[in-house]
Protein backbone atom coordinates (compact mmCIF):
# COMPACT_ATOMS: atom_id res chain seq x y z
CA UNK A 1 0.00 0.00 0.00
CA UNK A 2 1.62 3.30 -1.03
CA UNK A 3 1.95 5.80 1.80
CA UNK A 4 1.83 9.48 0.91
CA UNK A 5 3.03 12.23 3.18
CA UNK A 6 0.15 14.63 3.66
CA UNK A 7 0.32 18.27 4.61
CA UNK A 8 -1.21 19.76 7.76
CA UNK A 9 -3.91 19.85 9.12
CA UNK A 10 -4.17 16.16 9.89
CA UNK A 11 -7.85 15.34 10.33
CA UNK A 12 -9.84 12.18 10.75
CA UNK A 13 -13.30 11.00 11.67
CA UNK A 14 -15.65 12.81 9.34
CA UNK A 15 -13.80 16.09 9.37
CA UNK A 16 -12.57 17.57 6.13
CA UNK A 17 -10.22 20.46 5.66
CA UNK A 18 -12.79 22.23 3.48
CA UNK A 19 -15.37 21.75 6.23
CA UNK A 20 -13.06 23.21 8.87
CA UNK A 21 -12.25 26.22 6.75
CA UNK A 22 -15.93 26.70 5.97
CA UNK A 23 -16.75 26.73 9.68
CA UNK A 24 -13.97 29.22 10.38
CA UNK A 25 -15.20 31.48 7.56
CA UNK A 26 -18.77 31.31 8.90
CA UNK A 27 -17.58 32.25 12.37
CA UNK A 28 -15.64 35.21 10.98
CA UNK A 29 -18.64 36.34 8.95
CA UNK A 30 -20.73 36.25 12.12
CA UNK A 31 -18.36 38.82 13.63
CA UNK A 32 -19.29 41.26 10.88
CA UNK A 33 -22.99 41.35 11.76
CA UNK A 34 -22.87 43.72 14.73
CA UNK A 35 -20.51 46.25 13.11
CA UNK A 36 -22.71 46.34 9.99
CA UNK A 37 -25.80 46.89 12.13
CA UNK A 38 -24.16 49.73 14.08
CA UNK A 39 -22.07 51.46 11.41
CA UNK A 40 -23.40 50.57 7.99
CA UNK A 41 -21.91 48.57 5.12
CA UNK A 42 -18.29 49.76 5.49
CA UNK A 43 -17.19 46.63 7.41
CA UNK A 44 -18.35 44.60 4.42
CA UNK A 45 -16.26 46.79 2.12
CA UNK A 46 -13.14 46.26 4.20
CA UNK A 47 -13.73 42.52 4.45
CA UNK A 48 -14.61 42.25 0.75
CA UNK A 49 -11.57 44.22 -0.35
CA UNK A 50 -9.32 42.08 1.84
CA UNK A 51 -10.80 38.82 0.52
CA UNK A 52 -10.55 40.02 -3.09
CA UNK A 53 -6.91 40.96 -2.53
CA UNK A 54 -6.17 37.51 -1.12
CA UNK A 55 -7.80 35.80 -4.09
CA UNK A 56 -6.10 38.13 -6.57
CA UNK A 57 -2.70 37.37 -5.03
CA UNK A 58 -3.46 33.66 -5.11
CA UNK A 59 -4.45 33.88 -8.80
CA UNK A 60 -1.28 35.83 -9.54
CA UNK A 61 0.87 33.17 -7.89
CA UNK A 62 -0.96 30.40 -9.77
CA UNK A 63 -0.38 32.22 -13.05
CA UNK A 64 3.32 32.72 -12.33
CA UNK A 65 3.71 29.07 -11.30
CA UNK A 66 1.56 27.96 -14.23
CA UNK A 67 -0.67 25.88 -12.01
CA UNK A 68 -4.43 25.62 -12.14
CA UNK A 69 -6.37 28.20 -10.17
CA UNK A 70 -8.68 26.69 -7.60
CA UNK A 71 -11.42 28.81 -6.05
CA UNK A 72 -12.60 26.11 -3.70
CA UNK A 73 -9.79 26.87 -1.25
CA UNK A 74 -11.53 28.36 1.74
CA UNK A 75 -8.27 28.95 3.56
CA UNK A 76 -7.62 32.05 1.46
CA UNK A 77 -11.11 33.27 2.37
CA UNK A 78 -10.35 32.72 6.06
CA UNK A 79 -7.13 34.74 5.75
CA UNK A 80 -8.96 37.49 3.89
CA UNK A 81 -11.64 37.71 6.59
CA UNK A 82 -9.28 37.50 9.60
CA UNK A 83 -7.07 40.41 8.58
CA UNK A 84 -9.67 43.23 8.67
CA UNK A 85 -11.00 41.94 12.00
CA UNK A 86 -7.73 43.05 13.61
CA UNK A 87 -7.77 46.48 12.00
CA UNK A 88 -9.96 49.48 12.87
CA UNK A 89 -13.17 50.22 10.99
CA UNK A 90 -11.90 53.73 10.27
CA UNK A 91 -8.81 52.35 8.51
CA UNK A 92 -8.40 53.23 4.83
CA UNK A 93 -9.38 50.45 2.43
CA UNK A 94 -5.79 49.97 1.24
CA UNK A 95 -4.64 48.97 4.75
CA UNK A 96 -6.35 45.55 4.99
CA UNK A 97 -5.48 45.03 1.31
CA UNK A 98 -1.78 45.64 1.98
CA UNK A 99 -1.85 43.38 5.03
CA UNK A 100 -3.68 40.63 3.11
CA UNK A 101 -1.29 40.90 0.17
CA UNK A 102 1.64 40.47 2.54
CA UNK A 103 -0.11 37.58 4.26
CA UNK A 104 -0.54 35.69 1.01
CA UNK A 105 2.57 36.69 -0.94
CA UNK A 106 5.17 36.59 1.85
CA UNK A 107 3.79 34.36 4.60
CA UNK A 108 1.82 31.77 2.68
CA UNK A 109 2.51 31.15 -1.00
CA UNK A 110 6.35 30.98 -0.95
CA UNK A 111 6.08 27.99 1.41
CA UNK A 112 3.73 26.07 -0.85
CA UNK A 113 0.00 25.37 -0.98
CA UNK A 114 -2.30 25.28 2.03
CA UNK A 115 -0.85 23.42 4.99
CA UNK A 116 2.81 24.27 4.41
CA UNK A 117 3.10 27.73 5.91
CA UNK A 118 5.09 27.93 9.14
CA UNK A 119 3.39 31.14 10.29
CA UNK A 120 -0.23 32.20 10.55
CA UNK A 121 -0.64 34.43 7.46
CA UNK A 122 -3.23 36.74 9.05
CA UNK A 123 -1.00 37.38 12.08
CA UNK A 124 1.96 38.05 9.76
CA UNK A 125 -0.07 40.45 7.61
CA UNK A 126 -1.38 42.45 10.56
CA UNK A 127 2.06 42.52 12.21
CA UNK A 128 3.51 43.87 8.96
CA UNK A 129 0.84 46.58 8.80
CA UNK A 130 1.40 47.47 12.46
CA UNK A 131 5.13 47.97 11.93
CA UNK A 132 4.80 49.92 8.71
CA UNK A 133 1.74 52.07 9.50
CA UNK A 134 1.28 52.02 13.30
CA UNK A 135 -0.71 55.28 13.37
CA UNK A 136 -3.30 53.80 11.01
CA UNK A 137 -3.50 50.40 12.68
CA UNK A 138 -3.91 51.66 16.26
CA UNK A 139 -6.16 54.64 15.69
CA UNK A 140 -9.81 54.04 16.62
CA UNK A 141 -13.00 56.06 16.52
CA UNK A 142 -15.16 56.76 19.57
CA UNK A 143 -18.18 54.43 19.25
CA UNK A 144 -20.18 56.24 21.93
CA UNK A 145 -21.07 58.88 19.35
CA UNK A 146 -23.29 58.20 16.35
CA UNK A 147 -21.34 58.07 13.08
CA UNK A 148 -22.20 57.15 9.58
CA UNK A 149 -19.22 55.63 7.90
CA UNK A 150 -19.47 56.24 4.17
CA UNK A 151 -18.72 53.28 1.98
CA UNK A 152 -15.93 55.17 0.26
CA UNK A 153 -14.02 58.22 1.32
CA UNK A 154 -13.16 59.48 4.77
CA UNK A 155 -15.54 59.65 7.69
CA UNK A 156 -15.52 62.41 10.23
CA UNK A 157 -15.06 60.90 13.67
CA UNK A 158 -13.51 61.63 16.99
CA UNK A 159 -10.51 59.49 17.82
CA UNK A 160 -10.54 57.61 21.09
CA UNK A 161 -8.18 55.41 23.03
CA UNK A 162 -8.99 51.74 23.22
CA UNK A 163 -9.13 50.12 26.68
CA UNK A 164 -5.95 48.25 25.74
CA UNK A 165 -4.15 51.54 25.07
CA UNK A 166 -5.34 52.95 28.41
CA UNK A 167 -4.09 49.85 30.21
CA UNK A 168 -0.74 50.21 28.41
CA UNK A 169 -0.36 53.63 29.98
CA UNK A 170 -0.94 52.11 33.40
CA UNK A 171 -4.36 53.71 33.81
CA UNK A 172 -7.73 52.18 34.48
CA UNK A 173 -10.16 52.34 31.52
CA UNK A 174 -13.31 54.40 32.04
CA UNK A 175 -15.50 51.49 31.13
CA UNK A 176 -16.40 48.70 33.57
CA UNK A 177 -14.86 45.33 32.73
CA UNK A 178 -18.14 43.58 32.04
CA UNK A 179 -19.25 46.41 29.75
CA UNK A 180 -16.46 45.29 27.43
CA UNK A 181 -18.64 42.32 26.52
CA UNK A 182 -21.03 44.31 24.37
CA UNK A 183 -18.58 45.59 21.78
CA UNK A 184 -19.22 49.32 22.02
CA UNK A 185 -15.64 50.25 22.83
CA UNK A 186 -12.87 51.60 20.63
CA UNK A 187 -10.90 48.77 19.13
CA UNK A 188 -10.30 46.59 16.09
CA UNK A 189 -13.29 45.76 13.94
CA UNK A 190 -13.96 42.16 14.92
CA UNK A 191 -12.43 41.84 18.39
CA UNK A 192 -14.50 44.11 20.60
CA UNK A 193 -17.77 42.10 20.56
CA UNK A 194 -16.50 39.68 23.21
CA UNK A 195 -19.76 37.75 23.55
CA UNK A 196 -19.87 37.12 19.80
CA UNK A 197 -16.21 36.07 19.77
CA UNK A 198 -16.95 33.68 22.63
CA UNK A 199 -19.97 32.23 20.84
CA UNK A 200 -17.92 31.77 17.66
CA UNK A 201 -15.27 30.06 19.71
CA UNK A 202 -17.81 27.67 21.17
CA UNK A 203 -19.09 26.89 17.68
CA UNK A 204 -15.56 26.16 16.46
CA UNK A 205 -14.81 23.90 19.45
CA UNK A 206 -18.08 21.97 19.11
CA UNK A 207 -17.52 21.40 15.39
CA UNK A 208 -13.93 20.34 16.20
CA UNK A 209 -12.63 23.00 13.85
CA UNK A 210 -10.51 24.49 16.61
CA UNK A 211 -8.79 22.76 19.53
CA UNK A 212 -10.13 23.97 22.88
CA UNK A 213 -6.90 23.17 24.74
CA UNK A 214 -5.01 25.87 22.85
CA UNK A 215 -7.53 28.55 23.77
CA UNK A 216 -7.78 27.28 27.34
CA UNK A 217 -3.98 27.33 27.73
CA UNK A 218 -3.78 30.76 26.13
CA UNK A 219 -6.44 32.32 28.35
CA UNK A 220 -5.21 30.48 31.43
CA UNK A 221 -1.65 31.76 31.08
CA UNK A 222 -2.81 35.28 30.27
CA UNK A 223 -5.19 35.28 33.25
CA UNK A 224 -2.49 33.99 35.60
CA UNK A 225 -0.04 36.69 34.55
CA UNK A 226 -2.75 39.35 34.73
CA UNK A 227 -3.64 38.24 38.25
CA UNK A 228 -0.05 38.02 39.50
CA UNK A 229 1.26 41.12 37.73
CA UNK A 230 -1.57 43.59 37.19
CA UNK A 231 -0.69 46.57 35.03
CA UNK A 232 -3.02 48.83 36.98
CA UNK A 233 -3.82 49.34 40.63
CA UNK A 234 -6.77 47.00 41.13
CA UNK A 235 -7.74 43.58 42.43
CA UNK A 236 -6.43 40.53 40.60
CA UNK A 237 -9.95 39.65 39.43
CA UNK A 238 -10.45 43.09 37.91
CA UNK A 239 -7.06 42.92 36.24
CA UNK A 240 -7.93 39.53 34.73
CA UNK A 241 -11.25 40.84 33.41
CA UNK A 242 -9.68 43.90 31.83
CA UNK A 243 -6.80 41.99 30.28
CA UNK A 244 -8.88 39.15 28.84
CA UNK A 245 -11.70 41.34 27.58
CA UNK A 246 -9.67 44.19 26.06
CA UNK A 247 -7.80 44.31 22.79
CA UNK A 248 -7.57 41.36 20.44
CA UNK A 249 -6.45 38.81 23.02
CA UNK A 250 -9.64 36.75 22.95
CA UNK A 251 -9.88 36.92 19.17
CA UNK A 252 -6.28 35.77 18.91
CA UNK A 253 -6.90 32.93 21.36
CA UNK A 254 -9.97 31.68 19.45
CA UNK A 255 -9.19 32.30 15.80
CA UNK A 256 -5.44 32.73 15.32
CA UNK A 257 -3.78 30.49 17.88
CA UNK A 258 -6.04 27.56 16.95
CA UNK A 259 -4.90 27.59 13.30
CA UNK A 260 -4.53 23.83 12.67
CA UNK A 261 -1.63 24.34 10.25
CA UNK A 262 0.67 26.29 12.53
CA UNK A 263 -0.20 24.77 15.90
CA UNK A 264 1.39 21.60 17.30
CA UNK A 265 0.06 18.10 16.49
CA UNK A 266 0.12 16.60 19.99
CA UNK A 267 -2.31 17.35 22.80
CA UNK A 268 0.41 18.17 25.32
CA UNK A 269 2.20 20.25 22.73
CA UNK A 270 -0.98 22.23 22.08
CA UNK A 271 -1.52 22.90 25.78
CA UNK A 272 2.03 24.18 26.21
CA UNK A 273 1.77 26.12 22.94
CA UNK A 274 -1.43 27.87 24.06
CA UNK A 275 0.08 28.77 27.43
CA UNK A 276 3.30 29.97 25.76
CA UNK A 277 1.37 32.15 23.32
CA UNK A 278 -0.73 33.60 26.14
CA UNK A 279 2.35 34.37 28.22
CA UNK A 280 4.07 35.97 25.23
CA UNK A 281 1.01 38.09 24.54
CA UNK A 282 1.13 39.40 28.09
CA UNK A 283 4.88 40.00 27.71
CA UNK A 284 4.18 42.10 24.62
CA UNK A 285 1.50 43.98 26.55
CA UNK A 286 3.97 44.69 29.33
CA UNK A 287 7.16 45.37 27.37
CA UNK A 288 6.09 45.87 23.76
CA UNK A 289 5.70 49.19 22.02
CA UNK A 290 2.16 48.66 20.76
CA UNK A 291 -1.08 48.23 22.68
CA UNK A 292 -1.85 44.98 20.80
CA UNK A 293 0.80 42.32 20.74
CA UNK A 294 -1.14 39.13 20.03
CA UNK A 295 -0.03 38.92 16.38
CA UNK A 296 3.64 39.29 17.25
CA UNK A 297 3.31 36.79 20.09
CA UNK A 298 1.61 34.26 17.83
CA UNK A 299 4.34 34.48 15.20
CA UNK A 300 6.96 33.62 17.83
CA UNK A 301 4.77 30.83 19.19
CA UNK A 302 4.30 29.45 15.65
CA UNK A 303 8.08 29.18 15.34
CA UNK A 304 8.21 27.08 18.52
CA UNK A 305 5.40 24.71 17.50
CA UNK A 306 7.65 22.12 15.76
CA UNK A 307 10.05 22.17 18.73
CA UNK A 308 7.18 21.52 21.15
CA UNK A 309 6.04 18.53 19.11
CA UNK A 310 9.59 17.15 18.97
CA UNK A 311 9.99 17.60 22.72
CA UNK A 312 6.70 15.88 23.50
CA UNK A 313 7.45 12.96 21.20
CA UNK A 314 10.96 12.61 22.61
CA UNK A 315 9.58 12.56 26.18
CA UNK A 316 7.18 9.82 25.19
CA UNK A 317 9.97 7.82 23.57
CA UNK A 318 8.02 7.77 20.33
CA UNK A 319 8.77 4.80 18.13
CA UNK A 320 6.18 4.40 15.44
CA UNK A 321 3.22 5.38 17.65
CA UNK A 322 0.41 7.12 15.80
CA UNK A 323 0.03 10.86 16.25
CA UNK A 324 -3.00 12.28 18.03
CA UNK A 325 -5.35 14.19 15.72
Amino acid sequence: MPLTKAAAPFVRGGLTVAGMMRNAALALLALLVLPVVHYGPRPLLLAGASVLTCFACRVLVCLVRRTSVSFSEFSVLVTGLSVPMLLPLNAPVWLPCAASAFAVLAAREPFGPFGRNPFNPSAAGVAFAALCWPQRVFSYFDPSRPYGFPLFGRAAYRAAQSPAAVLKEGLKPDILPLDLLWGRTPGPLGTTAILVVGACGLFLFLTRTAKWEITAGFLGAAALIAALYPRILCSPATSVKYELLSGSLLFGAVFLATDPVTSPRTFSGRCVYGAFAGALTMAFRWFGTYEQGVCFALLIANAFAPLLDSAVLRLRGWEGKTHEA
Partner: protein
Amino acid sequence: MKRNGQLLRGARSIFLNGLLFRNPVLVGALGLYPLVAAARSVGSAAALSLLFLLLALPCGLILCFFGMLAPRWFRPGLVLLVSAACYPAAAALADLLLPGSVSGLGMAAGLMICNSAVYSRAEEYAPEHVAAAVLADAFGCSLGFAGVAFLLGALRGLWLTGSLPGAVLPPAGKGFDLPFAGFLMLGFLAALLQWLNRRRAERAAERLKRRIP
Protein backbone atom coordinates in the same frame (compact mmCIF):
# COMPACT_ATOMS: atom_id res chain seq x y z
CA MET B 1 49.52 32.37 -24.56
CA LYS B 2 47.20 29.41 -24.15
CA ARG B 3 47.93 29.40 -20.42
CA ASN B 4 47.08 33.09 -20.23
CA GLY B 5 43.87 32.42 -22.12
CA GLN B 6 42.96 29.63 -19.71
CA LEU B 7 43.82 31.85 -16.77
CA LEU B 8 41.64 34.65 -18.13
CA ARG B 9 38.72 32.29 -18.77
CA GLY B 10 39.11 30.84 -15.29
CA ALA B 11 39.26 34.29 -13.74
CA ARG B 12 36.18 35.33 -15.73
CA SER B 13 34.28 32.31 -14.47
CA ILE B 14 35.37 32.99 -10.87
CA PHE B 15 34.39 36.65 -11.22
CA LEU B 16 30.94 35.78 -12.57
CA ASN B 17 30.38 33.22 -9.84
CA GLY B 18 31.17 35.80 -7.18
CA LEU B 19 29.06 38.45 -8.88
CA LEU B 20 25.98 36.41 -9.68
CA PHE B 21 25.80 32.63 -9.92
CA ARG B 22 27.29 31.96 -6.47
CA ASN B 23 26.59 35.38 -5.03
CA PRO B 24 27.97 35.38 -1.46
CA VAL B 25 24.77 36.92 -0.06
CA LEU B 26 21.97 35.37 -2.09
CA VAL B 27 23.47 31.90 -2.45
CA GLY B 28 26.06 31.72 0.33
CA ALA B 29 23.99 33.52 2.99
CA LEU B 30 27.11 35.45 3.98
CA GLY B 31 27.49 39.08 4.96
CA LEU B 32 23.82 39.47 5.88
CA TYR B 33 24.05 41.83 8.82
CA PRO B 34 25.25 45.04 7.10
CA LEU B 35 22.69 44.61 4.35
CA VAL B 36 19.64 44.02 6.49
CA ALA B 37 20.61 46.52 9.17
CA ALA B 38 22.30 49.31 7.27
CA ALA B 39 21.46 49.20 3.54
CA ARG B 40 18.55 51.60 3.87
CA SER B 41 19.41 54.00 1.05
CA VAL B 42 21.59 54.21 -2.04
CA GLY B 43 24.13 56.26 -0.07
CA SER B 44 24.52 53.68 2.68
CA ALA B 45 24.69 50.91 0.07
CA ALA B 46 27.54 52.74 -1.65
CA ALA B 47 29.43 53.12 1.63
CA LEU B 48 28.97 49.45 2.51
CA SER B 49 30.06 48.32 -0.94
CA LEU B 50 33.16 50.48 -0.83
CA LEU B 51 34.10 49.18 2.62
CA PHE B 52 33.58 45.61 1.43
CA LEU B 53 35.87 46.08 -1.57
CA LEU B 54 38.52 47.89 0.45
CA LEU B 55 38.58 45.05 3.00
CA ALA B 56 38.09 42.03 0.76
CA LEU B 57 40.85 42.95 -1.68
CA PRO B 58 43.80 43.48 0.70
CA CYS B 59 42.68 40.67 3.03
CA GLY B 60 42.39 38.28 0.14
CA LEU B 61 45.79 39.18 -1.32
CA ILE B 62 47.63 39.11 2.01
CA LEU B 63 46.15 35.73 2.91
CA CYS B 64 46.89 34.47 -0.61
CA PHE B 65 50.60 35.21 -0.19
CA PHE B 66 51.05 34.48 3.51
CA GLY B 67 48.04 32.43 4.55
CA MET B 68 49.73 29.06 4.14
CA LEU B 69 52.60 30.16 6.40
CA ALA B 70 50.30 30.36 9.43
CA PRO B 71 49.18 27.18 11.23
CA ARG B 72 45.68 26.17 10.16
CA TRP B 73 44.24 26.62 13.63
CA PHE B 74 45.57 30.17 13.85
CA ARG B 75 44.41 31.28 10.39
CA PRO B 76 40.98 32.59 11.49
CA GLY B 77 42.63 34.85 14.07
CA LEU B 78 45.10 35.99 11.45
CA VAL B 79 42.28 36.89 9.07
CA LEU B 80 40.61 38.94 11.80
CA LEU B 81 43.89 40.68 12.60
CA VAL B 82 44.57 41.49 8.95
CA SER B 83 41.01 42.73 8.50
CA ALA B 84 41.30 44.87 11.62
CA ALA B 85 44.59 46.29 10.35
CA CYS B 86 43.07 47.15 6.96
CA TYR B 87 39.90 48.68 8.41
CA PRO B 88 41.17 52.15 9.49
CA ALA B 89 42.63 52.82 6.06
CA ALA B 90 39.52 51.42 4.37
CA ALA B 91 37.24 53.58 6.51
CA ALA B 92 39.39 56.67 5.90
CA LEU B 93 39.39 56.11 2.15
CA ALA B 94 35.64 55.44 2.10
CA ASP B 95 35.08 58.65 4.08
CA LEU B 96 37.28 60.54 1.64
CA LEU B 97 35.34 59.31 -1.37
CA LEU B 98 31.91 59.54 0.29
CA PRO B 99 32.17 62.11 3.10
CA GLY B 100 30.23 61.23 6.23
CA SER B 101 29.19 57.83 4.89
CA VAL B 102 31.10 55.67 7.36
CA SER B 103 29.85 57.46 10.47
CA GLY B 104 26.35 57.28 9.02
CA LEU B 105 26.54 53.49 9.00
CA GLY B 106 26.97 53.36 12.77
CA MET B 107 27.80 49.94 14.17
CA ALA B 108 27.55 48.29 10.76
CA ALA B 109 30.73 50.00 9.54
CA GLY B 110 32.92 48.61 12.32
CA LEU B 111 31.35 45.18 12.04
CA MET B 112 32.45 44.95 8.40
CA ILE B 113 35.77 43.84 9.88
CA CYS B 114 34.22 40.47 10.69
CA ASN B 115 31.88 40.37 7.71
CA SER B 116 31.36 36.66 7.09
CA ALA B 117 31.69 37.05 3.31
CA VAL B 118 35.06 38.84 3.61
CA TYR B 119 36.19 36.41 6.28
CA SER B 120 35.23 33.23 4.45
CA ARG B 121 36.87 34.27 1.17
CA ALA B 122 40.05 35.33 2.98
CA GLU B 123 40.23 32.32 5.28
CA GLU B 124 39.04 29.46 3.09
CA TYR B 125 39.58 30.56 -0.51
CA ALA B 126 42.55 32.92 -0.69
CA PRO B 127 45.31 30.77 0.90
CA GLU B 128 44.63 27.92 -1.51
CA HIS B 129 44.32 29.78 -4.80
CA VAL B 130 46.59 31.85 -7.03
CA ALA B 131 46.58 35.62 -6.89
CA ALA B 132 44.67 36.02 -10.15
CA ALA B 133 41.87 33.81 -8.88
CA VAL B 134 41.81 35.61 -5.53
CA LEU B 135 41.63 38.99 -7.28
CA ALA B 136 38.84 37.84 -9.55
CA ASP B 137 36.99 36.36 -6.58
CA ALA B 138 37.41 39.51 -4.46
CA PHE B 139 36.17 41.76 -7.26
CA GLY B 140 33.33 39.42 -8.13
CA CYS B 141 32.15 39.06 -4.54
CA SER B 142 32.51 42.80 -3.96
CA LEU B 143 30.39 43.58 -7.00
CA GLY B 144 27.93 40.86 -6.03
CA PHE B 145 27.64 42.31 -2.53
CA ALA B 146 27.34 45.80 -3.98
CA GLY B 147 24.59 44.72 -6.35
CA VAL B 148 22.50 43.31 -3.54
CA ALA B 149 23.26 46.33 -1.32
CA PHE B 150 22.18 48.80 -4.00
CA LEU B 151 19.00 46.87 -4.76
CA LEU B 152 18.09 46.71 -1.10
CA GLY B 153 19.06 50.31 -0.46
CA ALA B 154 17.17 51.62 -3.47
CA LEU B 155 13.99 49.66 -2.74
CA ARG B 156 13.95 50.50 0.94
CA GLY B 157 14.81 54.11 0.31
CA LEU B 158 12.01 54.43 -2.23
CA TRP B 159 9.50 52.70 0.01
CA LEU B 160 10.48 54.74 3.06
CA THR B 161 10.00 58.02 1.21
CA GLY B 162 7.01 56.84 -0.80
CA SER B 163 8.69 57.76 -4.06
CA LEU B 164 7.96 54.51 -5.88
CA PRO B 165 6.67 55.41 -9.35
CA GLY B 166 2.93 55.01 -9.44
CA ALA B 167 2.88 54.20 -5.75
CA VAL B 168 -0.57 53.80 -4.29
CA LEU B 169 0.54 53.19 -0.74
CA PRO B 170 1.75 55.94 1.58
CA PRO B 171 5.34 55.78 2.85
CA ALA B 172 5.93 52.71 4.97
CA GLY B 173 7.44 54.75 7.75
CA LYS B 174 10.08 53.46 10.08
CA GLY B 175 8.91 49.88 9.62
CA PHE B 176 10.95 49.34 6.48
CA ASP B 177 13.98 50.66 8.28
CA LEU B 178 14.07 47.49 10.34
CA PRO B 179 16.08 44.34 9.61
CA PHE B 180 12.96 42.28 8.86
CA ALA B 181 12.36 44.22 5.63
CA GLY B 182 15.92 43.48 4.56
CA PHE B 183 15.49 39.77 5.20
CA LEU B 184 12.21 39.66 3.29
CA MET B 185 13.72 41.44 0.31
CA LEU B 186 16.72 39.12 0.40
CA GLY B 187 14.31 36.20 0.33
CA PHE B 188 12.68 37.36 -2.90
CA LEU B 189 15.99 38.29 -4.50
CA ALA B 190 17.45 34.91 -3.56
CA ALA B 191 14.40 33.21 -5.08
CA LEU B 192 14.90 35.14 -8.31
CA LEU B 193 18.57 34.14 -8.47
CA GLN B 194 17.73 30.52 -7.66
CA TRP B 195 15.22 30.50 -10.49
CA LEU B 196 17.85 31.96 -12.85
CA ASN B 197 20.41 29.36 -11.78
CA ARG B 198 17.91 26.54 -12.31
CA ARG B 199 17.07 27.81 -15.80
CA ARG B 200 20.77 28.01 -16.58
CA ALA B 201 21.35 24.48 -15.31
CA GLU B 202 18.39 23.14 -17.34
CA ARG B 203 19.66 24.81 -20.51
CA ALA B 204 23.17 23.46 -19.94
CA ALA B 205 21.71 19.94 -19.45
CA GLU B 206 19.72 20.30 -22.69
CA ARG B 207 22.82 21.43 -24.58
CA LEU B 208 24.74 18.46 -23.23
CA LYS B 209 21.96 16.08 -24.20
CA ARG B 210 21.99 17.40 -27.75
CA ARG B 211 25.77 16.95 -28.04
CA ILE B 212 25.75 13.36 -26.79
CA PRO B 213 23.69 11.26 -29.25
